[in-house]
């Protein structure tokens, strides 16, 4: 019994539900005699990974679904051993090089060289190259990205790279220009609605239009999230009712309450309280940038026009520091404190005008 997300993941290009145009292009690419390096980018839950697996299947047939997990060790120049797990089939190998931290360059160089040096066993009936799938390319160090540049050109005979990331902003231009970039936009609300209906029909459930629409909006155009919410609703109550409450994740509710606390009162004591709650969120492994974004969206609704711009600036400023710094709690707290002071001044000025 698997989750709906996995159960109804399309496994061939023909079965994809949206971006049909893109699917047609990919199909043409897979059948053309020279397959380029690809770079998939788009927000999460838009189906990048699904499309990559479909392309691989199109290239090599069903053999790509026989996966095995391997542990590989790499030795850095300073004789430190780095261990990384890879997922591989006979035709492709998938790695997340950013797992190796600052040693990602070694992983990339060694791995691609070893893969590229061994030829495809049966090149008569198969493509004569293998595929290396690198995930989260935007989190690679600059060093590793530079290492990729020439490697990509040198080993085109025996291997192709498929990179995938959320945004190309952090990928150096030299790599971008060597790949065929493929943008995968998030599905629209109606598309998500259709897919929800389709899945529910397959499960033998009836889904009211109203509810499907609400789930789609709730998911923020993230298909994975939409399907998970839908399944959660199914567990919660069946048959579905139109005005059924959609369960939010615990941490989202908690974050909203935290934002509410900040707006309600601004004092050092309250700050301490908020701090405790932020720690609570962090210890539950909610990434700091998501906390930050959630806070901003809640706080901004309570602000006036000019203040909104200021809050946006503050958030951008502290979020940048948060990425650069070591300990996220400082920056989250600094943001909250700053907001409190600005908001309080705003309130007081408002009062002064009033009298």
């Amino acid at each position, binding site marked *: 019994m698997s989750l709906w997300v996995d159960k109804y993941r399309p496994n061939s290009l023909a079965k994809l539900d949206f971006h049909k145009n893109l699917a047609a292009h990919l199909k043409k690419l897979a059948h053309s005699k020279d397959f380029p390096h690809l770079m998939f980018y788009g927000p999460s839950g838009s189906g990048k990974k699904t499309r990559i697996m479909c392309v691989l299947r199109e290239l090599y047939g069903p053999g790509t679904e026989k996966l095995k997990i391997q542990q590989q060790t790499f030795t850095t120049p300073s004789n430190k051993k780095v261990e990384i797990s890879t997922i591989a089939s006979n035709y492709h190998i998938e790695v997340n090089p950013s797992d190796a931290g600052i040693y990602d360059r070694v992983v990339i160089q060694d791995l691609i060289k070893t893969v590229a040096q061994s030829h495809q066993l049966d090149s008569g009936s198969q493509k004569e190259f293998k595929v290396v799938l690198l995930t989260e390319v935007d989190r690679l160090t600059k060093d590793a990205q*530079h*290492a990729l540049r*020439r490697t990509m050109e040198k080993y085109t005979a025996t291997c192709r790279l498929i990179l995938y990331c959320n945004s190309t902003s952090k990928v150096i231009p030299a790599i971008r220009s060597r790949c065929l*970039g493929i943008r995968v936009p998030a599905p629209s609300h109606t598309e998500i609605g259709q897919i929800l209906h389709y899945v529910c029909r397959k499960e033998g459930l009836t889904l009211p239009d109203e509810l499907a629409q609400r789930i789609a909006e709730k998911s923020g155009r993230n298909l994975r999230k939409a399907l998970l919410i839908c399944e959660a609703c199914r567990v919660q109550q069946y048959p579905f009712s139109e005005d059924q409450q959609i369960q939010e994740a615990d941490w989202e509710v908690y974050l909203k309450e935290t934002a509410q606390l900040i707006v309600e009162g601004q004092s050092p004591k309250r700050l301490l309280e908020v701090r405790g709650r932020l720690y609570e969120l962090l210890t539950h492994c909610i990434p700091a940038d998501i906390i930050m*974004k959630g806070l*901003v969206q809640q706080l901004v609704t309570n602000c006036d026009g000019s203040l909104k711009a200021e809050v946006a600036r503050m958030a951008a400023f502290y979020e940048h520091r948060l990425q650069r710094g070591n300990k996220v709690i400082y920056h989250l707290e600094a943001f909250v404190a700053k907001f409190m002071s600005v908001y309080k001044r705003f309130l007081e000025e408002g009062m002064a005008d009033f009298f």
Partner: protein
Amino acid sequence: MDAFLKGSTSSTASTKSKSQSTKEPRAVPWVEKYRPKSVDEVAYQDEVVNVLKRTLELDQVGELPNLLFYGPPGTGKTSTILAIARQLYGPELMKDRVLELNASDERGIEVVRNKVKKFSQRAVSSTTPSGKKCPPFKIVILDEADSMTRNAQAALRRTMEKQNKTTRFCLICNYVSRIIEPLTSRCSKFRFKPLHDEILVKKLKEICGKESVLYQTGVIEELVKVSEGDMRKAITYLQSASRLKGDEAVTIQDIIEISGIVPDIVIDAVLESANSSSYERLDSSVKDIILEGYPGAQVISQIHDRIVEMDQITDKQKSVITERLGIVDKCLSDGADEYLQLLDLSSTIMTQFCQAESSS
């Protein structure tokens, strides 16, 4: 009976498809295929080519200095030095006499001390095995030299001078300021200019003709526009587009999609919502950009182009916006969140627009 018939037809079909799949020759990227073969073919870099051609004439070849090529990507730096090497040694001897190192090779101080030094110390004869005359030195090409560490660069200094008899160095980089001073002073520097639009058009049309690519009018111009003088980019985009479309004609839309350029409508939407002084609209249009998967850095650079050319705001306001642009760009390249940064930028633009309206 039916099943039997079906079975037999499908088996014949499969044998047919098998016989069709004969092996095709290995495809080479067009960038490699159309790389200039000799120095003469290098387009547009007249000054560089003239100087090099003069030194390449056989009686003066000993005077070939150490070279430093710099300039934006895709202007022919690597192509030029490879062409020189080919002209000097011919394809056979080239493997023996040229050491090419780039950022993907291990290039720390150890490698400079051992590999480069050993290679450069070896003396070579002034004739080829077949008895033809050839220059009595080897060439070390250090591609992407600006990504070498300072220590590794420093280790090169003395090697370069001492092995002057047997080896010439050629450093290639994008930014000459990242090469340490002692190295630049030991080389004669050549700057490669971004290619002119006409050159790109000519080359692209030539390739289209040779590869029999069909395209709609305006496609070549669009390619030139998005590639910004980078030949490699233009050719790669062209090849990708033709691969995507197969036998159909390439359209302008395809080029935009491949190059990752954000369509003008999207940028218009952001600027318009910034003009409306409604934060909610701004927020939703920024969110849309992120969800559509457009890269933040690209959005910023296109907003920049627009802002600079805008008439309705004063220079002072432009400077405020562009300052924020700079900060946001830096933050993005540091890995900050795109949504928050774009929101920051667009709310700055909004404040400036509103001021413009209230003051006028």
